[in-house]
Structures are given as C-alpha cells and as structure tokens.
C-alpha cells in the first residue's frame, strides 16, 4: 500500500510538471503581452526598459527555468494585472467564494438529488417516477448559462424574492448555488434511482418485509443506507467538478470567485496568474483522483491496489 501511494505521488508530480511546462510555453505563444494597451502609450525605448524590469527580455527557456526555480521554492510570482498582489494571495482571496459556492451547491444537489432519486425508485413506473425523472432530465438539459440569467431576471428582478446578484449575505447564496446544482441534481437523482431499484430486489429486503417491518423502516434503514454507497463514491469527483466549474454562475451572479480570474488572466496575458491557476486547478484534480482511488480500495474490498497480491 505504502509503495503504491509513493508511486502515485511521483506520478502526480510528473503530471503536474508536464502540465506546467506545456502551459508555460503555450501561453508564450499567445499574441500580445501583459502590459496591454499601455504599450501603445509608451515609447519603444521605455517599453523595453519596462519589459526588462519584469525579466521578459530574456529568452523563453531562461524565463522557464527562473519560473520553475521560483515555483519549487513556493514562489508563484506577482500578478501583472494586479501589481503588488501575489498569485497565491489572489487565489486565496477568490477561491474562498468558489469553494463556498461549490459546497453549498453540493448540499443542494445531495439533498434534492438523492430525495428525487429515492422518490422515483419507490414510485417505480408510476407517475411520480416519470415526474421525478422528467425534472432530472430538464435539470441536466438546461445549461447553467441559460438558467442563471433567467433566475436572476425572474426571481431577482421581476419577483424580487432573492437578490439578483452579488455576494453579501446568506440570501445571496441561494440562487447561484441552486443554478450550479441543477446539473448535479439530475446526475445524483438518476444514480440514486438505479441504485435503489437494484437494492429493492435483493434478498435482505424481502427478509425484512417477511419479518413484518414497516415499509418506512425498510426504506430508511435498509434500502437508502445500502443504495447510497455507490452514490457516495462519485461525490469526490462531482465535488471537484462543481468547485472548478463555477465560471458561468460566478459571472451571472457577480460572485467574486476564481473562475472569472482564469479567463481574465488569459485574455490579459497575465503570465504568472495563468501558470499559477493552472497548477492550482491541476493539483486539485490530480489529488482528488488519487484520493478517490485510495478510497475505492478502502471501501470496496473487490478493488485491489497494486502491490497487495
């Protein structure tokens, strides 16, 4: 097990290194420079002085080694768009909102998705089932860039029930979290339904029924508890998806998150931000995939990790 973990960690580092290197050189192919229109205002001589101050006059391979050297020392550099603010501090500041939004939407997804799935399974092939699954299909078919502006306009402006945007108090969280949750609700509902149906035909449910247990007790104690297991295993990757996929919702509801930072970093050639954010997002994904693999091994004895023959 230990050997396996070490091996995976080495792979993770190699993966990250490849990603950073590729991003670094691809990013340098972007036309333009981090100074944007300021370049037009300056004389070519003054512009050369400015570039030299940032070390951008050196050949790219040299810039690469300098950057990697800094990264190894934990220094991700200073943003070009926001002079004086380190990439790490921008990530710290903006990731808070993305993480919070992601987790809140996850709570919505789990509560509604599992509820809907369980309900559909219990009403198998009846109106309730079709209704629940129809809701799920609608949820997954409407992308967040359609539902978010509609929510903001109708619930925020026309009805005035919730704030149309911004990130001030708890009320401001509801609509963005719900908009983000919609797709996940559908996935979880369908999984939960399938899982419940599978469990409901198993012998121990029949045994429980023949023992004369109330159907309420059967569902709560036996069916849901067993059916939920496979759903739990995909929560890790889903959580990452939700947390890293907040861009559209953040834009529509003016949430100060990290998603839009990535986009503006790229459009304004903010080199340090682009590589810093790439490392950050890549690290999250790689680590979660790793943890999920480990968790599988622990939860499900049928999955054997290498080296445990």
């Amino acid at each position, binding site marked *: 097990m230990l050997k396996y973990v070490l091996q995976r960690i080495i792979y993770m580092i190699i993966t990250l290194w490849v990603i950073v290197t590729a991003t670094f050189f691809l990013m340098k192919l972007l*036309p333009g420079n981090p100074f944007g229109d*300021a370049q037009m205002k300056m004389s070519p001589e003054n512009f050369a002085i400015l570039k030299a101050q940032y070390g951008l006059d050196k050949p790219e391979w040299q810039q690469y080694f300098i950057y990697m050297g800094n990264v190894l020392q934990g220094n991700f550099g200073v943003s070009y768009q926001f002079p004086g603010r380190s990439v790490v501090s921008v990530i710290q500041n903006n990731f808070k909102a993305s993480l919070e939004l992601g987790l809140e939407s996850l709570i919505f997804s789990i509560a509604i998705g599992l509820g809907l799935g369980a309900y559909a399974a219990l009403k198998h092939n009846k109106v309730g089932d079709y209704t629940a699954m129809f809701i799920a299909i609608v949820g997954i078919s409407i992308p967040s860039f359609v539902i978010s502006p509609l929510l903001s306009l109708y619930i925020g*402006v026309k009805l005035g*029930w919730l704030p149309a945007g911004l990130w*001030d108090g708890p009320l401001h969280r509801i609509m963005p979290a719900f908009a983000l949750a919609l797709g996940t609700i559908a996935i979880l509902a369908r999984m939960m339904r399938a899982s419940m149906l599978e469990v409901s035909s198993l012998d121990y449910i029949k045994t429980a029924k023949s023992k004369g247990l109330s159907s309420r007790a059967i569902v709560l104690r036996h069916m849901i508890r067993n059916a939920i297991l496979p759903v739990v295993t995909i929560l890790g990757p889903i959580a990452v998806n939700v947390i890293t996929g907040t861009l559209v919702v953040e834009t529509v509801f003016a949430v100060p998150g990290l998603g839009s930072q990535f986009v503006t970093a790229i459009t304004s050639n903010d080199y340090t931000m682009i590589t810093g954010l790439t490392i950050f997002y890549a690290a999250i994904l790689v680590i979660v995939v790793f943890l999920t693999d480990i968790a599988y091994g622990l939860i499900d004895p049928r999955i054997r990790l290498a080296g445990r023959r």
Partner: protein
Amino acid sequence: MKFKKILSTAMAVTLAGSLLAACSSNNNSNKGSEPTGSAQASAPASSGAKQELVMNYRAEPPALDVSIAETSAAFTVLGAVSEGLYRLNKDMQPEPGLASALPEISADGLTYTIKLRDGLQWSDGSPLTAKDFVYSFRRTLDPATKATYAFIVAWVKGGEDVMAAKSADDVKAAQEKLGVEAKDDTTLVITLERPVPFFTSLLSFLTFYPQKEDFVGPLGEKGGTDADKVIGAGPFLLKSWDHDQKLVLEKNDKYWDAANVKLTKVTLNIVKDNSTGLNLYDSGASDFQVLSGEQYMNLKGNPELVLKPELVTGYLNFQETKVPAFKNQKIRQAFSMAIDRQGLVDTILQGSVPSTGFVPLGNLDGDSQEFRAVAGDAQVAFDPAKAKELLAEGLKDEGLTQMPKVSIMGDDHSTGPKVLEFLVGQWEQNLGVKVVASPMPHASRVDNELKKNYDIVSSLWGADYNDPMTWLDMYLTGSSLNTQDWSNAKYDELIKEAQTTTDAKKRAANLVEAEKVLLEEAAISPLYFRSIPVMVKSKVQDLIQPPYGPEFELKWTSIK
C-alpha cells in the same frame, strides 16, 4: 404514501436551513440583501435622503498606487480617495485642489510655481507638504517602480534621464536633478523640459498626485493592494476593499473641503457582466450601471438613461508599405469616402456620433477653446460616386487594373466584428472592392497593429490628456504609433513647431492645420466619436462623468 413524508421532511429541513441563514443575515447585511426594490422605496420615504450611493463598477481596480495606476478603474477610485494640485470641475476646467490658487507660470512657459493650501493633512492626520509631491514624481520615474504612465511625468525637466538610468546610484543622481523642488513646506516649483500649455490641467491627473513617503516607502510593492495600504488626502477614505467584490468609501473629515462633500458613503460593487449589472440596477440594488449597445437599444427613451461622450475616436489606418496601393492618396480617399458614417452609427454604434475629424468632440485645443468648434468638419465627406472615380484614377496612377486583395483587421469582441462587416459591405457596394474581414482578439489586434502587420486596421484611440497633441503627435514621421508608414513634411513641421512654441494661439492654429493635412490626405479614416450609455437613478445629483481619465467624479455628488 409515507415516503412523501420523508421527502417533505427532507425539504422542510433544507428550507428551514435556508430560512435560518436568512434570519441571521439580517444582523450584519446592508440593504443589498433585501432586493425587493428597497432602495427605491426607502429613499423617498425618509425625506432627509441618506447621502449614500451604491454603484456597480465593471472591474476590480488594480493596485491603487499613484505611480503604478494605469486603468480608469484606478483613476476613478484614487480620484475619490486622494487629490492632486487641481481637480477638474464639470466643465473639465482645473479648480484649485491641494493648491491654493492656479500656478504662477514663467514667461517662457517652463517654470510653474505653486502654493499649497495651509494645514493640509493626509487622511491619517499627518501633515501633507510640497515634499510629498517631489517624492511622488521621483518614485514614478524610477524604472524599478515599473510605472507605465511615467512618460507623462518625464515631461518634467530631467525626467527622461531618471527613466533611462541603469543603476540605483544613477537613478538617485538623476532624481536629485529632476526639475521639481519643494522651496518650503507649501511652495512647489516644477520646471519642464519644454512648454506644455495644458500642464495646469494635467496636474489634476492621477500621476501627479502627492505620495506620503513614510507610508508608501515601507510598503514597497505591496502598496495600494488593500484598504489599509491606501492613503490619500481626498474627499473620501477607502474604508474597506473586498477584492473582486466591493469597495466602500466613506467621507474623509480631514479633507480641506470636507464641508462641501455631501456623500457620507459610497459602495462600489464589482459587477463584471452588464446584464447582471442591469438586473441589480432594476431590482434597486444599485444606483449606477454602464450599458452595452444592445441594452441601450432596449432602454432608449428611459429618463434615467444618460449618454456619456468620451474622448475616444474609432478610425482606420491604411498600411502603406505592405499595400503599396495605399501610398496613393486617391485610393485612400476613395476608401474613406465610400463609408457612410451616419449609417454605421445608426445601425451598429447607437449613441456614438459620426466623426467630423480625428480629434473628438469635447477635446480642447490647448488655447481654452473646443478643438472641433475651431476646426469644424474636416472629414472627407461620404460620396460613393466620387469615391469610385477617385479609385479608378488612383489605380490608373499606380498602373493597376484592379484593387489588390486586402483585408481589414479589428477586435472580435462587442461591436468590433459588426463594424468590420459594415465596412466590408460599404466597400463592396460603393467601390466594388472585395475586402476580407479578419476579426481577432484585442491583444492580437494591438500586437499586429504595432508590428505593422495589417492591410487596413480598425482601431480606437482614447485621449491621455485633454489636448490635441495626444491625437496628432502619433502621426509624426517615424513615430512608433505611425504604424501605417505615412509621412508628410508639412505635417511634421506643423507638429514640431507646435511642440516648441510658447504662443498658445499659434500652437492651436498649427494643430488645426495639421489635422486638416492628415484628413485631406486621408492618411487615416476616422469613423466615429464614441459615447457610453449609462443608467443613473434620478435621485443621484451632480455625478460628473468626465470624458477621459476617471469614469466618474464623486466629490460634488449628492442624493436628492
């Protein structure tokens, strides 16, 4: 049946959770969390009208550092938090700010002697003296500060030497020689390299604000990155700054003119998306929102809609080396003459004005007149028949049977691609010439433009300072912004003379004449003067929206 109960219990728990959350929110949240039009409803009810303003702002300001700031977001916020020697009023005329009166200018126009007000204070209560200006100018010019707007301060005598200094010692030596001196605590003397007739008004620009050495110095590169790292001497204080979320300004009681500042609090919410911004505005959560072109179309006629003219001109450049045909004046004129500018504005750029020259409406001429009022309509007029004739003549002169294949490059966002399509249509229809549209990301467009890698480019220029020179000196022969390689001896002479003369009348006349040359030869083809549509709640009074520099001026604003 019982499962319904479970489900409803689950729902109830979720709802209760959000309700609890909602209750606790009422303790610490402001009116932003009560979206039900509370801003509209409450303001008229309490007749004393709270002097508080909530605005949507489209971008997070980069560092609020006087030396480094280069975006209008930073100009806007720092303009509220601090002040220069002068402040522009609603007519864009300089009024004494930290200075007690307009400067005494020497006869040769080079030396400015300025008296500061007595008893000036920074917002922390420490005294503000002439030395703070000296420090500020020196710091901005130091190459290590990496200030992109340093070129403006470099007009002060010896400025270029500081910028070009190689070692720290050289920088220090050059800074000592810089033409800015604190004679005593309240007397500042600035010496210029050559006369700059609009320098008094330029002194109101952010880059000439004072900086407090023992505050800014220790912060180093961290200066201006958080609310506690910003200091000023202006009408407001930066109370808090949640990055990417909001900035809160409060009235600064130590400001010399605090008695005339009416607003007690201004909240700037960072809202990057226009539709979101308009939703917030409509729901009453904001008093100010900038509109997109489409939103403007839908809201035309709304009494809260304001059109803000800017000192920004959209225009075309013709690259004469890459496309030798464009060396021919008649061909350039034909291309310019074949464009129906009114049509362009009516169909795509609603709110903007068809250009009547290169220097936009509202731009002063350096002799306290409006440039366009003096220069009049200098544009080659729309005339398809004449354009066709000119093209035929031009091609004959060049020994060509038909116009070579050319493309037009422009931005690929907002109205950029539509403008290209319109122009391509006009040339096909009115000249019978097929031009290929090639929209691309803004950064690529600028990059290609500066590398002279284009046939025709659709570009935009905004004034850095309110003088025709910011427009006209870029077409001097060999200027890095003269990307089309156009050259005209008479033009060069007129501009160079204007740069050195101390006679404001002669200078202004030269500049008018120079623009005439530029446009008669159709060296460039201006298209429109840009305006930005803005929604402002009618209760907001005296919110000045200057055409360049900061986006709004809050000092004199009040709530009715």
